């Protein structure tokens, strides 16, 4: 089956909240999901990601704008006509039906004959590793198993579109990592256009082709995990995807998209500087903790900081530092090779120059 595209054209949705009054949940969102792509909506709770997903599903109707699946306008089509698979956060298994009947439900609706249905159900049960569970009931299954039933039930109808609403948030950490790679494999093999909602940035980075970062009902940035991590377009994205240090710098001079800045009294030459950065002004600059290098070689001409806290995490050590009265975080990998530092110790600090960014 040919994969389809999904297009959101300027959709908006407003809710009436009991305390806050009129709340704009989704504000003029435009977006295209490419055929076969797995796209993730990522954002803090209340950012509108679930509402947007539910509008694609047809559980909610947008107040404005149009939704296209395979270039067909489905804005006013009821959910049961959209041919999609939905995986709920709480799985929403039918408690009165066996696992077999749960999965067969959509096939029965479509009027698939008995033999073909049995084959299809058996097939997906095998795919999700639940053979032999046909006659169990949802409440007899563990959370992870229920999750896989929900997935099997969604894909068995061969939907054009797969939608996931935080499907892993009720699982424990280990199972979450395992299941997300299963979902990823399944989605790639079946080549079904998918939208995935999560508030967990690691999950989003692991599973997606592209990530849509949302905040307050608006799309902030769309891109691959790498693009968002290395080239965030604003402070919000930089802080939401991974960790980042914000520091104050003085701009000494600019030239095209290059600039010379002074951070903690030391000069750095930055490239890829956005417009509007003017010489002689203060400017916030950002650097990821793993691009803050620590060493024993303190001395003149080097930046010096004091370790205030040290957190050992196995493959890495996270340090909290004080530098010129400011807080700074650094992450050091490979502790055996590079040696470690103790709280109270003075260390030399180096910034990887290409990693320092100025953001809007």
């Amino acid at each position, binding site marked *: 089956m040919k994969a389809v595209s999904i297009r959101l054209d300027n959709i908006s949705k407003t809710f009436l909240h009991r305390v806050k009054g009129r709340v704009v949940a989704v504000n003029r969102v435009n977006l295209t999901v490419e055929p076969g792509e797995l796209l993730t909506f990522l954002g803090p709770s209340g950012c509108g990601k679930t509402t947007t997903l539910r509008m694609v599903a047809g559980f909610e109707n947008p107040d404005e704008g149009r939704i296209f699946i395979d270039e067909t306008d489905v804005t006013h089509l009821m*959910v049961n006509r959209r041919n999609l698979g939905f995986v*709920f956060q*709480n799985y929403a298994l039918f*408690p*009165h039906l066996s696992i077999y009947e749960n999965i067969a*439900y959509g096939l029965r*609706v479509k009027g698939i004959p008995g033999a073909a249905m049995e084959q299809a159900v058996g097939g997906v049960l095998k795919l999700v590793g639940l053979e032999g569970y046909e006659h169990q009931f949802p*409440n007899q299954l563990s959370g992870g198993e229920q999750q896989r039933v929900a997935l099997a*039930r969604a894909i068995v109808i061969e939907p054009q579109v797969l939608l996931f609403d935080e499907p892993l948030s*009720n699982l424990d950490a280990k199972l979450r990592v395992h299941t997300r790679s299963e979902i990823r494999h399944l989605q790639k093999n079946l080549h079904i256009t998918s939208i995935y909602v999560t508030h967990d940035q690691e999950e989003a980075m692991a599973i997606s082709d592209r990530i849509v970062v949302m905040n307050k009902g608006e799309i902030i940035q769309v891109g691959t995990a790498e693009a968002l991590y290395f080239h965030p377009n604003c402070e919000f994205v930089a802080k939401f995807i991974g960790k980042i240090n914000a520091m104050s710098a003085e701009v000494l001079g600019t030239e095209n998209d290059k600039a010379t800045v002074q951070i903690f009294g030391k000069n750095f030459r930055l490239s890829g500087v956005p417009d509007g950065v003017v010489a002689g002004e203060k400017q916030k600059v950002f650097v990821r903790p793993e691009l803050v290098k620590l060493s024993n070689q303190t001395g003149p001409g080097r930046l010096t900081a004091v370790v205030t806290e040290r957190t050992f995490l196995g493959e890495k050590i996270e340090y909290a530092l004080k530098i010129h009265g400011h807080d700074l975080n650094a992450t050091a990998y490979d502790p055996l090779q590079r040696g470690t530092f103790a709280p109270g110790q003075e260390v030399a600090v180096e910034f990887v120059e290409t990693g320092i960014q100025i953001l809007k």
Partner: protein
Amino acid sequence: MPPPSSPHRNGWPLRGVFRDPALFLSVAVIWALLALFIVYPLSKILVMTFERGGHFSLANVVEILSAKNQLRAFWNSLLLGTLVGLSGTALGFLFAFTAVRSNLSKGWVRFLDASIILPLISPPFTTAIAMIFSFGPRGLLTYHLLGIKNFNVYGLHSTLFAETITYFPIAYLTLKAILAGIDPNVEDMAFSLGSSRWRVFRTVTLPLTVPGLANSFLLLFAASLADFATPLILAGNSFPVLPTEAYLQITGLFDLKSGSVLSFALLVPAFIVFVLQRYWVSRRYYVTITGKTGAQTQIKSVSPWARWLLLTACLAIATFVLYFYVLLFYASVVMAFGANYQLTLKHYRVVFTEGFKAIHDTLIIACFGMLAGGLYGVVVGYLVAKKDFISRQVLEVVSMINYSLPGTIVGIAYLVAFNDRPIMITGTALILIACYVFRYGATGIRTTVAILQQIDPTIEEASYSLGAGTGTTFRRITIPLVLPALFTGLGVVFIRSMTAISATIFIVSINWVLITVRILEKMTEMEIGVAAAFSIFVIVVVFIVIVAISLVLRLFRQPGAPDVSNILGG
């Protein structure tokens, strides 16, 4: 110093009781009361039924039930109960589905809630009286409006109709809770798999409601089986049922033995219902699957036109119910309903002069019953839910017996048991109060148990960990949490004391007159204006009490605090 306790040596079950003398004492007192007021009367009925010449024998049962009329009464009772169960559940489902599954505005839902209040709080025979006013020989609808001269209001059809109107609110409350508990995501899921609305209803919503439907059917079946007053007014000679037959045997022919056997015949189906409800239906409720419910969703169960259709049907029925009560009120303020429609207050004058003793007696009994019953409910509920002692489960089941049995059986059992030595309390207020306490106090027990079971044990542990002792924890944590249950218990006993008839009719005496009994007397004496005025009086009093209690309950805004509907449904 007590010896160090070891879990392995706790083999002797009475040990806990002896270690805690207060517990031992309270359990002993409760058991003594239960034995006296529940077990003893019932055993008397069984003895009366199965004893002949000092031996066990089925002769009484065979003899009395082989009488043609009695056997017919038995089957009629089952038929009526089944039909009321079916029609009441259907009507209740219509209302409940409309209220919670069709996206009505809050105002409409509140209206539906309000429209079922009147049948719930009235004495169970007010509908029957209104039926006579509306469809009787000089009925407003049949005689005056439609001009039908010989419409027969007596028989199965009108008994069924009146009982359906009287009891469908119970089905509504039961089913509304079930329907509201269905996770909308489950329905959404079915939609996303391609189901139409009708298919979602048929394959998801309805199957998930089945346990509730079964429960509601059983509740209504039992209510109809126990209903004495409606058939007395409406069934007529052509349709005898067990409670009325037993009443005629006892008060008409002073035949206690026949009465016992007939009430035993009633006991068999009632017991089956009790067992089915307790051990079958309650296990079939579907547990909501783990995980927090997803985003709130718009319920899409019905299309707009279906919604208006449902609402119209509900409105029609609600209007009809309201019409009954307007009619009842109207009958209480005219000279002679059916003949002279001049407005008058003379019926109310009768109520407050000649009828004052009934009001006075009823209120005294209701007040004492309320205090004793409320306390009884909380104490037994606390013991059952929080304390571990031998015979705990048996005690819980026994405490529910009188509540679950048809009132006719309880009334006859009390009559048979307390009419003679060693305990002769027939004719006193005590027998009436005891009857109410051990019958309706059960609601207080259930509410207390429900509340206490919802309280996580860690809440009390948290209090201990903050340095509070057992006494302080009980006073500061347990009692405030249980108070709503106490008020619910008080309310139920009071209201039922005002409206009950099926058990009371057998144990009233000239010393203590009850309003409900006076209403029935007035109905048979054809003083229907006074009967109507008395009914309105009871409804007003009960309504005031309900409002007061719901205001008190509103003060306790803690999770798990019972809703006022607990009182009504109980």
